[in-house]
């Protein structure tokens, strides 16, 4: 059985550092290509997560505002779910203005609610500073892409070694 780990790549290629997830995935080593399925997600949709069989691991890659540009931030998806729930409980959750704008951690929390368990997987965040339309990656983010690709590969390697995921 071929194992493929879905990698949901969030962001928008035309918006500066928001393209960092796509650029990092482009640098994944060739030997990994048979073990992953890269899924451009734009803004992570709950339906993508609900389509995954329960327990199937995945990797979510996205640019992150608020981190130092180029900083790589790796966490289990469950950590983001816990954070979203804590923020909501404390009344500090970002208010989704519309269905177009549900923040990533709240999408994960919704999936956790509907599944009775957080999605199984890893989040790889890449700190960015400029997300203007028509701009390119900033220099610190461009310099961090090999490290981001290595972080994604490491996350995939863990799952590829432990899980058999139907293609």
């Amino acid at each position, binding site marked *: 059985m071929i194992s493929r780990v879905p990698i949901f790549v969030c962001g928008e290629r035309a918006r500066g550092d928001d393209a960092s997830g796509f650029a990092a995935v482009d640098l994944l080593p060739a030997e990994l290509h048979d073990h992953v399925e890269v899924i451009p997600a734009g803004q992570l949709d709950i339906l993508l997560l609900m389509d995954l069989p329960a327990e199937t691991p995945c990797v979510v890659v996205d640019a992150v505002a608020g981190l130092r540009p180029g900083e790589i931030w790796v966490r289990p998806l469950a950590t983001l779910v816990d954070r979203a729930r804590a923020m909501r409980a404390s009344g500090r959750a970002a208010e989704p203005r519309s269905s177009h704008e549900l923040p990533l951690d709240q999408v994960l929390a*919704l999936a956790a609610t509907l599944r009775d368990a957080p999605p199984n997987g890893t989040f790889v965040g890449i700190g960015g500073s400029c997300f203007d339309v028509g701009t390119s990656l900033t220099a610190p983010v461009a310099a961090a892409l090999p490290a981001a690709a290595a972080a994604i590969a490491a996350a995939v390697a863990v799952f590829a070694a432990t899980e058999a995921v139907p293609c």
Partner: protein
Amino acid sequence: MSRGTTAEKAVDERIYEVHELTRVEGEGSLRLRVRDGEVLEARLGIFEAPRYFEQLVVGRTPDEVIDIVARICGICPVAYQMSAVHGFEDLFGVRIDPQVRALRRLLYCGEWIESHALHIYFLHAPDFLGYESGITMAADHRPLVEQALKMKKAGNHLIKILGGRPIHPVSVRVGGWSHVPRVSELREHRAALEDALAFAQETVKVVSGFTMPAFAREPRVVSLRHAGEYPFSDGRIVSSDGVDVSPSGWREAFEEFQVEGSNALHARSKDGKGAYLLGPAARIMLAGEQLHPLAKEALAASGYAELIRTNIYASIVARAVELVQVCAEAIDIIDAYRPPSEPLVSWQSRPGVAAWATEAPRGLLFHRYEVDESGRIRTAQIVPPTSQNQAAIEADLVVAAKQVLDLPHAEATLRLEQMIRSYDPCISCATHFLDLRVEEV
């Protein structure tokens, strides 16, 4: 939920403000000022930045326009494609295969399914059930939310089969389709639509059980009406008080105008009769006789056939009835489908005006393009339903104000937000215009 609400300003004057409306598509605000029970100001502010689509299409060819205007909205891209393609085909005298037409109705069914499911369960139902969002509602109503997600997926998948992808489809072309599905592709999706139909019928029962806030205003309503089918893309533009023009003739009866404080143009009828309502309730009022038998049955059983005429909050029932309509019609189209003998007919451009109105999930959507001698767009006008509904929303705010004065401030504000959400406003669609005036000194 409501950010930036302010308390009473004075004993006899109350201000209800929501600086950022939630659970609507796009960025808008609400301001209502009441003094001694008299409404001094009722305003739906739209501050989302203009998106310039009417200028983006200038110089483009008709087929390019169809792909560009789809990008106006991720929820109702099909509506933008349909109004444009029908306008161009009308101008160029293109005659399409009946199965091409059936597939376009099927594409529209997909869009209405995903749009209505999203609005009912994630944007509007939380108001009735006392939750701040669909996310918090999911914890207590998990089966409903799961079913709603499945239904939305069924709609998006239908769009994918026909249009190549679930959002912003790419296969609609002047003269037909760049790709048509095999019979088997559609049949494989039939079971999902059967499930969606059953859930749509259940949805009508669920929302009919909601407690509707008191409200009474019989609005003037406008929609397409067709003698033989529920309106999507053909028929006549009609109103409850006598307007009757062709789908290309919107400007004979209506016009746009700019209002201070809104980045979306408003619309009004030229006869001076003021605000009008578009959308599911308007369509059922004007074209309900063409509902699918299953949708008619659901409407009758809901007990809301009359109340949707006067209570805007009950639009959620009208929207649910339309879910039954489109799920049932989608199945019928799939059962009768044979691949068209001519999926794409050739056509010749000619200069002139391409104009047409179709029914987006939120109501009538009008497009008008001037095409030049080289087959490119000289000017464009796009009039989305939310733009046209703004005046009706503000008229309803005046009525709603009287119903909420006795409520605690926060509850009153929430009730007003709920009323606005009854329109399923898509503000992102409405803020596309560019009115650039250069004054030479």
